[in-house]
C-alpha cells in the first residue's frame, strides 16, 4: 500500500492506501469518487472506462495506477470547460445520442482524443478511433453524426 500522486482533471490529488497495481479505474471510482468512468469488462475490450492520459485514450480498467502517476488524466467529469460543455458533449445532447448511456463517457473520451489529433475526421478516421468502444444499445449512427457536428463547430471556432 502506498500513497499515489495523481493529476486528475487539472487537480493534484493524492490517493492514500492504494495498492500500486490497482487499475486506475478503481482508484478513480472507489478512492476519488469519480464514478463517471465506467466498468464494463475489466479486459480493455469494451472501452467504457476510457480516459485520457496526457491526451491519449487509455483503458483505465487495465492500466495500473502506478503507470500513470505524474501524467495528466482527464475523465468525463473534466471534459467540459468551466461553464461550457465540450462541443462533443453538446453534440451528443443535440443528436440525442444516448440510450442507456452507460458507454457514452467512454465514447466521448475516445472521440475527444480523436478531435485533438484530427480536428476534421473522415468516416474512416472515426471508424478507427472508435473501434475500442462498444455501445450495446447500438447508438453508433448518432455517435458518428455527433462527432461530425462537433468537428464542424471546433474547426469553425478555430478558423
Amino acid at each position, binding site marked *: 500500500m502506498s500513497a499515489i500522486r495523481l493529476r486528475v482533471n487539472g487537480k493534484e490529488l493524492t490517493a492514500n492506501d492504494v495498492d500500486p497495481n490497482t487499475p486506475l479505474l478503481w482508484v478513480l471510482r472507489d478512492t476519488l469518487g469519480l464514478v463517471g468512468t*465506467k466498468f464494463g*469488462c475489466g479486459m480493455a475490450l469494451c472501452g467504457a472506462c476510457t480516459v485520457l492520459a496526457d491526451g491519449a485514450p487509455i483503458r483505465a480498467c487495465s492500466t495500473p495506477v502506478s503507470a500513470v502517476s505524474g501524467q495528466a488524466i482527464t475523465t468525463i467529469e473534466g*471534459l467540459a470547460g468551466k461553464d461550457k460543455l465540450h462541443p462533443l458533449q453538446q453534440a451528443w445532447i443535440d443528436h440525442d445520442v444516448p440510450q442507456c*448511456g452507460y458507454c457514452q463517457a467512454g465514447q466521448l473520451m475516445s472521440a475527444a482524443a480523436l478531435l485533438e489529433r484530427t480536428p476534421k475526421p473522415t468516416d474512416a478516421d472515426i471508424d478507427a478511433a*472508435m*473501434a475500442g468502444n*462498444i455501445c450495446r444499445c447500438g447508438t*453508433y449512427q448518432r455517435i458518428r453524426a455527433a462527432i461530425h457536428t462537433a468537428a464542424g463547430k471546433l474547426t469553425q471556432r478555430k478558423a
Partner: protein
Amino acid sequence: MNALVNPAADSDATLRDLMLDIERGTPVATLRAVKLDRRSFLKLTGMAGGGLALGFFVGSDAAAASISPGDFAPNAFLRISRKGSILIYSKGPEIGQGIKTAFPLIIAEELDARWSDVTVEQAPVNPAVYGRQSAGGSRSIPDSWDQLRRAGAVARSMLVSAAAASWQVPAEECTTRDSAVWHGKKSLGYGALVTRAAALPVPDAAAVRLKERSEYRLLGKSYTGVDNRQVVTGAPLFGIDQTLPGMKIAVYERCPAVGGKVRGANLDEVKRLPGVRDAFVIEGNGKTTEIMPGVAIVADNTWAAFEARKKLKMDWDESAASKDSWAELVKSATELGKHPTGAQTLANIGSVDQALEGAARTAAGFYTYPFVSHAPLEPQNCTAWAHDGIVEFWAPSQTADRALETVAGALGVPVAQIKIHQTRVGGGFGRRLMNDYVCEAGAIAQRFNAPVKLVWTREQDMAQDFFRPGGFHSLTGGVDAQGKLIAWRNHFVTFTHDGKVPSSGSNWSEQELPAQNVPNYQLSQSMLPIKTPTGPWRAPRSCSVAWVIQSFLHELSAAAGRDHRDFLLEVMGEPRLLQGGLDTGRAAGVIKLATEKAGWGKKLPEGHGLGLAFHFSHAGHFAEVAEVSVDRNRKIRLHRMVVAGDIGPIVNMSGAKNQCEGGVVDGFSTMLGLAISMENGRIEQSNFHQYPILRLANHPQVETYFIESDNPPTGVGEPALPPVAPAICNAIYAAIGHRVRTLPLTKEGFSI
C-alpha cells in the same frame, strides 16, 4: 429454506409467469387501483414536511430547491411551484428505452405545459400509488398512456377552474397553452394559479376531458433525453455509481455449472487477504431468480474484492448441477429434425400432407439458432443496506415493483420492510426483469453491518444469465401453380426444464405467422431437457422465430419465382384483425412503405441484394428492407436498413427512431456473430473477446419511417428487432443465391 424438488424447473416456472405478466401488461397482482390524490403523494414523497425524500438521485437537490410545501400537487405524478416550475415524476425504470422522457411528455401534453418549464425526477417505487413500475414487453407506453394523460388532464382542469374563478368567467371559455391559462388576451401562468388550484377539490380522473390528437403540441416531435446532460458529464446516475457512507464492496461466487452447491471454501485464507472484511457462505434457496448457493466476499473496495475472488478456492457439490452440452443438444435436435413431425402436435389445420403432394413447388430446410446472452454494458450490481429494521436497496432493475415481493420472499422479511430506489439502468434487454442480483445484495447486507454494493464481473454477468434459448425448426412448405402459399409444416425442436412445457422464452405462440394465413398448417414440437436458465431477451420468441418464419416464406416465394413483396402482401391478404392482434391492413401498410422507401426492384451492383421481412410483436407492425453486399470470401456489408413501423402516434420522435436504430444494430450484431454455448454445464464465453458485439465501423445506415395511425400508441423498444435477421438473410440470398439456415452467420463462413 424452501425444499425444492426441482429448483431449476421451479425457477423456470417463475420466469414463464413473469413473461406472461409482462407480455399481457398485467400489473403486479397485489396492486390496488391507482389513487390520484394529494395525501398519498405527500405521504409517498415525504413532501409534507418540505424537502424531497428521494435520497439519491442526482438533480433532486436542484429540483427540491424550487419546490416548497405550498405547491400544487393534485396527484403523485406532478407538482407545480408558485414560481411556475413543473416537476414531473417518471414512474418506470429508465433502461435506455427513453421512458424517462416519454412518460413526462405525455403528462406535459395534457397539462399543456411548456416543456422547458418541466423538470423530471424518478418516482419512488410504490406500485400501490403508481401502478406498474416495470420496463418489459414494450408495455410501458400502452399500459400507462391513459393513466398519465389523466394525471396531466386533472391538473390542467384544476388550473383552468382556478383561473376562471379569479377572472369570474366560465371555465369553458378558458384555454391553456405554454404553462398558462388564457381567456381572450388575458393570461395567468400556472405558477400564479398554484395557491388557488391547490385549494380546489380534485376532479374524478375518469371524467376529465382528454385532448384529441389534432390538439397535440408536444407529442410527435423530437426531444433529447431528459438525463442526457448528466449522462454526457458523467453524473452518478447508474446503479453501479451509488455510494453510501461507510459502504463496502461485495462479490458473490456461484457454481459455474448452475445448480451446484457449496461443499467448502478456503474462507479463512480469503478473510486474511488485504482489504477483505468478511467472507461467508450463503446457502440460498436454489432459485436462479433469487439466491443460488455461493460465497460472498466483502472488501474495502472493488479491486480488493475482485482480487480476493481470484484467490477463492471453491469445492462445489455438482451432483445436481447442469451438465448441459450445446454440441450434444445440436446432435439430438438434428436427429429429431429428420422427422417431419414431433411428439406433440400443437396445431393441425387442413391437410398439410395432401397439400404438399399437390403443390407445384415445395421447399424444405432445417433452421438452427443459438443461445445468446443479454450482455448489458453495466454488469449486474446492487447496493443494499440493512438498517433500522428495514433493508434498503438502490437497484438497477427493470422490475422494481416486482422486486419488492421477490426480495422480501427471498430474504424472509415482510414487504413493508423492503425499500427500493430505482436507479438508471445501464442496459436491460430483458436481463434485469429478474432480480437475482438484488436478492444476493440483500442477503449479503443482512450479514454485514454496513451498506454493501454487490458488483458482478463481466465474466459472471455473461455466465449467470437467463439466456435467449436457441432452437431448431424443420420446415416444409408448398405453393400452388399460381405461386400461392398453400402448405406450411414446422417441427419445432425446443427445450424444457420440467419435461412438460417449453422453457421460458422457448415456447411457440400459436398465433405466429402463417398459422392464420395458409389453408394447410401443421405445427409440432419436440423438447430437449436442459438446466441452463433461459428467459426473456429483447422481443422474446420473436427475436428468433421471426428469422425462421420470414426466411422460409422467402424460400417459398423464391421457389415459386415470385417477387417477395407481392408474395408477402398476398400472404397477408385482405385487411383484417388476426387472433393475437396482427392487423393485416397495417402489415400491408408497412410492407408497402418499407419497400417504397428502399427502392424495391431497383437495379443493384453485382453482389448486392435487397431483403424484405415483416414481423408483428409487442403490438408493433414492422417491415424492414436490408441492402447487403457479399464478396467472394463471404465478407458482407450491411449498407442500409429501411425500417417502416406502425405503433400508432409517436410520443418522442427522436426516442422512437433511436430505438429502431438500436434494434437494427442489436439484431445485426446478434445474428452476425453472437452465440452462447455450454459444455458440462459451463458457459464457454466469458467476455467480449468471445462475444463480439458489433462495433461502430460496421453499423448500417438506418432509416426509420412511421405510419402514425390513429390506433392507440404502443411500445418501440422491441418490435423493430425481429425483422432484422430475416431481412439480412433474404438480402444475402438475393445477392448470392445462398440460403442461410444457421445463425450466427459466422457459422456459415460469413464475416464483416
